[in-house]
């Protein structure tokens, strides 16, 4: 029978939640790396026992951990992230030039075909690649060097490259997103990049339709339609049908179009999920009611999903990398909260139940569907 493994990164360690295909009873292991910030843990599509984890603290910096046995044992790998050449400057919060400084790895994206190749999205925003299982890291410097880098500015959480999407149909095509610079695409495996932000409108920018500067919170893709991307921006839910050449808004009837997480159903490429969040400063659910919204039409028409979710007094957030889906017959949907709950739906979002209640702040949630 199939199994699901849910990889949870939290502010104080990592947890691995496993269940059979019914997804009713869960085994919980952890905390792994207790006390460390675990920004992201992700498994290799080419070898599900190969996991990569980003571990960091303000005291001791960045560690990359690797497991070859599905998370039972771990080994520290290389942690030398050095920007290529003279790093230069980006904009600081006050608009003054600020030198690029490595702070941490936000997101690890293993190759779709090679367990030893993995990409790392880092703060200050840049993309690195390792081709030897995480031992050595090289910057794909064409991203920072394509010309707009000096105009990038940090969002409230820092200037992070938080989203990496590999095109399953084209090994040379990669999408990334940066807060607060926007979305970018390469068609030559990372040598050269172009901003793909046409159609985005950000009222907090002096020029709301600028080429860069947009605070993209997250992007999701269904592997069967690699040209279709869905974006949760600081405000607005957006969609592109042409690999980012142009975007249009699909916020539709959402109660608020602010949020962080967005994901796509495993078997229905037009079914997407978001968690609307009250903003600009509150960053908790509207009216204290935690809700997921689902669109079965690729956006614009949204339905509220509430069964099993808190009806009152809920003031948590769901961060950008804290939602994932599994690929069992009835698609599972998962998300973690800043209050330490991880909710699961085994029926594509119709009903929800917490797997765990009281973890540290959840930073990321990823899944693996195992045979």
């Amino acid at each position, binding site marked *: 029978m199939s199994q699901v493994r849910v990889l949870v990164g939290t502010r104080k360690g990592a947890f691995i939640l496993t269940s059979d295909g019914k997804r009713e009873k869960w085994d919980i292991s952890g905390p792994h790396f207790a006390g*460390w910030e675990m920004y992201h843990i992700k498994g290799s599509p080419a070898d599900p026992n190969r996991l990569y984890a980003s571990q960091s*603290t*303000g*005291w*001791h*910096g*960045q*560690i990359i951990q690797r497991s070859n046995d599905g998370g039972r044992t771990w080994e*520290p790998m290389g942690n*030398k992230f050095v920007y290529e050449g003279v790093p230069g400057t980006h904009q600081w919060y006050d608009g003054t030039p600020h030198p690029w400084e490595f702070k941490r790895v936000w997101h690890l994206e293993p190759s779709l075909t090679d367990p030893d190749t993995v990409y790392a999205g880092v703060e200050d925003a840049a993309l690195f690649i390792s081709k030897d299982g995480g031992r050595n890291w090289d910057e794909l410097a064409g991203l920072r060097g394509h010309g707009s880098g000096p105009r990038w500015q940090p969002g409230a959480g820092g200037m992070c490259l938080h989203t990496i999407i590999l095109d399953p149909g084209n090994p040379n095509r990669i999408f990334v997103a940066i807060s607060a610079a926007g979305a970018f695409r390469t068609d030559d495996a990372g040598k050269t990049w172009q901003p793909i932000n046409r159609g985005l409108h950000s009222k907090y920018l002096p020029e709301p339709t600028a080429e860069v500067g947009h605070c993209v919170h997250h992007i999701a893709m269904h592997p069967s339609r690699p040209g279709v991307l869905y974006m949760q921006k600081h405000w607005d839910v957006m969609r592109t049908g042409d690999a980012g050449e142009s975007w249009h808004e699909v916020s539709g009837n959402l109660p608020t179009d602010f949020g962080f997480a967005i994901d796509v159903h495993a078997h229905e490429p037009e079914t997407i999920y978001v968690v609307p969040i009250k903003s600009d400063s509150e960053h908790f659910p509207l009216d204290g009611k935690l809700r997921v919204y689902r669109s079965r039409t690729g956006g614009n028409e949204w339905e509220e999903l509430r069964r099993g979710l808190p009806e009152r007094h809920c003031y948590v957030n769901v961060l950008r990398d804290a939602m994932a889906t599994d690929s069992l017959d009835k698609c599972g949907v998962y998300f973690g909260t800043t209050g330490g709950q991880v909710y699961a739906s085994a029926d594509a979002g119709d009903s929800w139940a917490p797997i765990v209640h009281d973890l540290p702040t959840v930073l990321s949630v990823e899944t693996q569907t195992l045979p």
Partner: protein
Amino acid sequence: MIRVELPAHLRTLARVDGEVRLDVAGLVTQRSLLDALESRYPMLRGTIRDQSTGQRRPYVRFFACEQDLSHDPPDAPLPEAVATGSDPFLIVGAIAGG
């Protein structure tokens, strides 16, 4: 034999219990001590000092013989008591954060 006491997180990372004991060739300085430590435990590279600049990480402190040596030059000799192993060299995570 030099005695080094690591903070808890780094003991876990290096998979050691208690003090670390190191042989340090030549003059015992912060740099030579940390070079020896990182050579024995490569997973500690970058966790105490920056791998590129060699500078101490901001929230890490070096204490020995009831002195704060954090701001001493990296090539200055460490106290005799550290060099002879009668006192440990303490690598401390500064009190900060939750």
